[in-house]
Structures are given as C-alpha cells and as structure tokens.
C-alpha cells in the first residue's frame, strides 16, 4: 500500500519534472518532424495556392517538410474545428481566413470552435483586395462620383452581385457610408457572380483583384476604385482606394493568415512567426503572390489579433442590420 502510494507520488513527481524539463527543450528543437497546415478550402482556391507557395518557402527555413492538407466544407468550419482540437504543439496549423475567424461564428450557431479563444495568431500572410467593378454598358460611368449620383437618382434600381462574405461586406459598407439603396443579388461563388455582371444581368460588384483583373483589362468590366486596408494596392496602383475618396469605412479585405491551436508554447509561435515573416517579405514570394492577384502583406500576431477584433465587430454590425442570424 505504502509502497504503491509512494511510487505513484514518485512517478507523478517524475512526470512533472519531465514536463518542466521537456517544455523549453521541445520548443528549442521545434520542428523535429513535418508540420501540417490545414487549408479550409479545396485545392485551387486562393487560400490553397497561397498556402502552397508558403509551404514551399517554409521548408528550407524550418528544415522540415510542410504538408498542405485540404479539408473543405462548412465554409471552413470543418478545418478550423479540426485544428482547434489538435495537440497545441505547433505541428498542426490552420490557414485561417476572414470566413473561419470572423464570419462563421455569426453564421453558424453550432460552431465547434471559438475563433477568439481556440487559436493563437501566428501572422497574416496576404490580403485579397477588392475592386468596385461595374458593367460598362449598364452603368457607363468613368468615376465613382458619377456612379453615386446615378444611384442616388435611381434608388433601388441598381443591382450588385455578391459571391462571398467579403464581397457582401464591402458592398454593404459602401452602401451604408454613402446612404445608397442598391439591390443585393446573392450567388454561391464569386466566379458565378462575376459571370452575371459581365453578361449584364447584374450591374455592379465588389470582386477580388485576382478574379476580375483580366475582365477589366479586356474592357468587359470597368473599375471605379479599389478596396484596401488604406493605401493603394501595388497590384493596381492607379486605382484610388475608395476609403480615401467616398467611403471612409471601406477598409476590409479578404485575407489569409496562419494560426496555431491555443496553448501552443510561446517559443514555438514566435519561431513560426519569424519564419512566416521572412517568407512573406521575400521578393520572390511577393512576386509569386502578385501573379495570383494576392498582396503579400505580413502582420505580426498582435496586429492580426487586433485586426480580427475590428473585423468581427464590423461583420456583426452588418449582419445585424441585414437581419442575418447564426443558424
């Protein structure tokens, strides 16, 4: 009896000391095996290609393989729930987006994770800036002021297409800032929505640069301004951000960023963050993402957290105004 009690206590003490000892050393030797980045959308999506370019560049820096694991479904909720439940050791990471981190709690009632509590941000990787694109036959205007005057003169007559949360939020902020009455026409995806703006069924849209730039160059769509975090985007330097002209609050963009499960050792997060920063700021990465229509835009952990907090509040306000509730 006594012996077993003693040995149990001894074993417990031993375990504690091993943990205390192993803690810092685990972080020092991180990573000693392959790291998996779970992508919440299917292969070929902007999130996926951005992750793959990052993974390729991270491998030599970490000295280990980086595996990209696509787990699409539930607007990213499946992948995020998976990583939230993973061991917080830095070997399973999430490529989060504004869907997984901000929109889902407002859309899905039975979400299996809490984006604020279950994750530690490692850093924002890239932004997908938006464009105010109009069909040049339906809305033959060359400046955003002319467009706004036209919409004011014809309340409820101009229609805009939305294919995802980002394009919906952009259009909603634009309409609210300027007090405009425009008709929302929802689609399942941005390409579908863009097709109907090109064909003239719908008048305007806030697509991302990646999917719309070739249509703008070919003259099938006309760009009247950009949506950025503030400054003009290097991908379309001639386009003035709408936040600088008519819509001061229009500073929300689509983005991707790396997250670890909450409880991951601070040293591991810092190590990953430094590696991601180095990749994101390299010339090669910036150029590669530029050809995809994405803007390499590193934000460190604390700044990413602050950005998500304002984004979530902004989403909440818009969904509330539109009467959308979590289901």
């Amino acid at each position, binding site marked *: 009896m006594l012996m077993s009690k003693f040995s149990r206590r001894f074993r417990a003490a031993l375990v504690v000391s091993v943990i205390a000892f192993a803690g810092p050393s685990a972080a020092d030797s991180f990573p000693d095996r392959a790291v998996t980045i779970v992508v919440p959308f*299917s*292969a*070929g*999506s902007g999130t*996926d*290609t951005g992750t*793959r370019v990052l993974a390729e560049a991270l491998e030599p820096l970490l000295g280990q393989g980086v595996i*990209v*694991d*696509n*787990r*699409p*479904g*539930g*607007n990213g*909720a*499946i992948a995020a*729930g998976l990583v939230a439940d993973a061991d917080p050791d830095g070997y399973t990471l999430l490529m989060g987006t504004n869907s997984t981190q901000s929109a889902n709690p407002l*859309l*899905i*009632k*039975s*979400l*299996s994770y809490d984006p604020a509590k279950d994750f530690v941000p490692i850093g924002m990787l890239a932004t997908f800036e938006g464009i105010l694109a109009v069909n040049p036959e339906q809305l033959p205007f060359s400046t955003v002021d002319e467009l706004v005057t036209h919409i004011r003169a014809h309340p409820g007559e101009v*229609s805009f297409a939305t294919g995802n949360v980002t394009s919906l939020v952009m259009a909603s902020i634009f309409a609210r800032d300027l007090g405009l009455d425009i*008709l929302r*026409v*929802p*689609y*399942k*995806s941005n*390409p*579908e929505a*863009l*097709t*109907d703006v*090109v*064909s003239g*069924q*719908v008048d305007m849209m806030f697509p991302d640069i*990646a999917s719309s*730039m*070739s*249509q703008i*160059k*070919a003259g*099938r769509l006309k760009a009247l301004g950009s949506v950025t975090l503030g400054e003009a985007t290097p991908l379309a330097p001639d386009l003035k951000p709408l936040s600088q002209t008519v819509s001061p609050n229009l500073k929300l963009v689509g983005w991707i960023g790396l997250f670890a499960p909450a409880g991951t050792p601070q040293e591991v997060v810092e190590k990953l963050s430094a590696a991601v920063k180095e990749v994101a700021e390299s010339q090669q990465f910036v150029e590669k993402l530029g*050809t*995809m*229509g994405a803007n390499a835009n590193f934000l460190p952990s604390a700044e990413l957290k602050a950005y998500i907090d304002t984004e979530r509040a902004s989403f909440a306000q818009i969904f509330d105004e539109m009467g*959308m509730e979590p*289901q």
Partner: protein
Amino acid sequence: MDLLANLALGFSEALTSTNLFYCFIGCLLGTLIGVLPGLGPPATIAMLLPMTFTLEPSSSLIMLAGIYYGAQYGGSTTAILVNLPGESSSVVTALDGYQMARNGKAGLALSTAALASFAAGSIATLVIAAAAPLLAAFALEFHAPDYFALMVLGLIASVVLAQGSVLKALSMIIFGLIVGIVGTDVTTGVSRMTLGRAELIDGVSIVAVAMGIFGLGEIMQNLTHGDEGRSSYRAQLNSLLPSWQDLRQMAAPIARGTGLGTILGILPGGGALLSSFTAYAMEKKLASDPTRFGRGAIEGVAAPEAANNAGAQTSLIPLLTLGLPSNVIAALMAGAMIIQGIQPGPNVIIEQPTLFWGLIASMWIGNVMLVILNLPLIGLWVRLLTIPYKLLFPAILAFCAIGVFSLSFSTFDIWVMVVFGAFGYLFRRLDCEPAPFLLGMVLGPMMEENLRRAMLLSRGDPLVFLQRPISATLLLLALVAVVMVSLPAIRKQRDQALEE
C-alpha cells in the same frame, strides 16, 4: 483558312513529345478514376494540381483536361458492369447499359459507350475550334429566367424517363428536391435541414448519394435475391464489338446526343448530367418502340455517352474564351492557369494562341488515345463479371468507401452513402426509380436559385419568364410535355404500352 492555320499551330504544340506524354498520362488517369467509383475528376485534379506547378502551362492544362474527358470514358464502365455509376453523369448510362450487361451484352455496351464518346469528342473538338467564341456569347445570353425554364423542362422530362407510374416518378422527384435543398440557402444565408452538422452546410454530397442509391442498393438487392440474377453474365463473352447493324442503329442517337451535349455543356452548372439525361429522354421519345428503354436499348447507351463527352469538352469553352469557369473542374483549371502566371480571361486566345489551340488539338489526340486505350480493356472488364459475386461485392464496397472518403477526406460522406444505400434498396423494393430522384436533387436547388434570382432582378414581376424568348420557348416545351403526360387518352395508351 484561319481555322486551318490555327489548328496547324495547335497540332504542332500538342504533338511535341512532352505534351503527348502528358496528354497520355491525363487520359490514362482519367480512365482509371472514371472506373473507380466515387473518386472523380474534381478530387483527382485537386490532388494533382500542386504537381503542375513545375510543368509548362500547356502541358499542365493538357493533362488536367485529359483527366476530365478521360473520366467520361471510364465512368461508364462500372455503370454498365455492376450498375455503379463512376461519375454522376454516367447515371443514365447505367439505366440501359446494365440491362445490356444482364442480357449478356456487356462487351457490346462498353464498346458502344467508347465509340459514342469518341465520335462525340471528335465532333465537339471541331465545334470548339470553329465556333468557341460564338458559343461563349450564347452562354452569356442565358440569364436566370432561362435557367429556371431549362430546369423546369429537365424535371418534367425526367418523368418521361421513368418506366412505371407517373405518381411514383413525381414522388421521387419531390424527395430528390427535399434532399437537394439541404444546406445554406443562397439567397438568405439561412441553413436548411442541416441537423446542426457543419458537414451539411454545403449540402448533401451528390456523389455519396448516387453511390449509395445505385451501388450499395444494387448490392443489397443482389444479396437478398441470391445469385440467380448473376448467372446470365457468363454468356456470350465473345461479342465485344458492335456489328454493322449495331453501328447503323447507334449513328443517329450519337449525332443527336453530341448536338445536345455540345449546347447544354457550355451552360454553367449541371451541364454533363443534364445533357445525358436530356439525350436519353429524347431518344426514348423518338423511338418507335419506347418500351425497349430500360431493358437494354443500345440507343440508351449511345446517346447519353455521346452527350456527356461532348458536354465535358464544351464546358471548358466559357473558361477558355471568357475566363469565366462554369463548373468545379473549370474553376480548378483556372487555378492552374493562375499559378502559371496566366490570367484566364477574354484575351487568352490572343495572348496565348499556342496554349489555346494546343489544348484544343490535344483534345482530339486524347480522344484517339482513349479509344485505343479502352477498346482492348473491354475484354478484361467483361472478364471481371466472371468473378464470383461473393468476392466481387466486398471489393465494390471497399472501392465505394475509398472513393467517397476521397471527396473531402471525411467519414461523414461514407455515412451519407450508407444511409442512401438503404434508401436505394427501399426504392427497388417499392419499384420506384432512382433516376428521377437524383435529377430532382441536382436540378432542384439550381431551379430554386434561378427562380429567386430572376424574381429579384425583375423586382417581383413573374412576366419576365414569358418576355424572354429563351425561357418562353423552354416553358412552352415543358407545358407540351405536361399535356402529353397528363392527357387521359395518352396516359391510357402509355399504360397499355407498359403492360405489353
């Protein structure tokens, strides 16, 4: 002349040894994944996409396109042999192809499918080369009211597909519609019937449902009925290739199927499935003896196979000429182009002529490769049927599970397949046909989405459906179909014909 010069440019690009190699790899992979139930082109292309990072742009697109149309060849194989559609578009092929196999004509059915696919693929390639920009402009003319009218016509045509009672066919369509609307409502963002599961937010997986209803349902049916249904397979292994008379019988259906597939394929959404269903329904209507359909009619294999292959190829037109992907595959290929630094858009033909024409030329070369690849395999496939069923069905089950799992690496989809396997068995016991169910599930959500979009854009004025010539014509055709099905005199005839 321009066309010839362009095709010459295309062939000079497609016939380089590298591109021939990747074309072959694509066709071979496409055939294999087509044969494997569940594992379809979207999952395969998604998995292979990262590998194309290092390839030349034309090589990678040639390979990815080969996977897509190659799968249309392979998809019919298991549909014919074991009533298990490898792709959702070969659901229709299973209707008569499997019956042909039961009548000892598995080889003939397989070679018919391969030849129909080849003929359609060759014609569709020519159409793309000659009229791609024109067809793309037509696709943009198709607006929300027109899509709604097309879906209405499609659903009504699926009643024509059914063998037995109209009431049962209607119930199956409605059940399909109910399953189809599970998931997020596009217009309001409200989740419908998701039972609080995140996996259901994007809807019930059509592939998992089709595998359950057709594959698992068939297995249960066969097991409860002993081995008697299987004995006929061993007969007539030698009649693999069609006779001159068979060829004459299938020529017109192939031509009609190709025409339908070419047109419907360029429309976004369920192009391939819709075109094969419509082609089948049309053949049944045109046939002098419609009762042969569902009992092993060769036209019932030739027309839909031609339609789905033609549709698969023309579905790439909006992407190549406008930069607007019209389905998941095209979206993945757009992703492959973007990775290579090519912006898919209206200027691709002008800026990248070798890429555009090379891809088109490779489609014809790929079709030749596929028919050469597939005809010798037929003997092998047919021999599979001589494997005792007690060994065959566990293998089919395992492949189904693997294929469904590969869709999104989730065990949830396997459970979906199991549940719908039970439904599939129930449908068979009740003499209800699964085809209208599946069509309702696919077309229902698209019909609803386009109805609500059309009403939004017309500000609630339903007359928009009659003002647009395309939708007015399609709705008129639907009305004619309804009258024909419901006129008591005609229905009497129909029932009499069925009893005979």
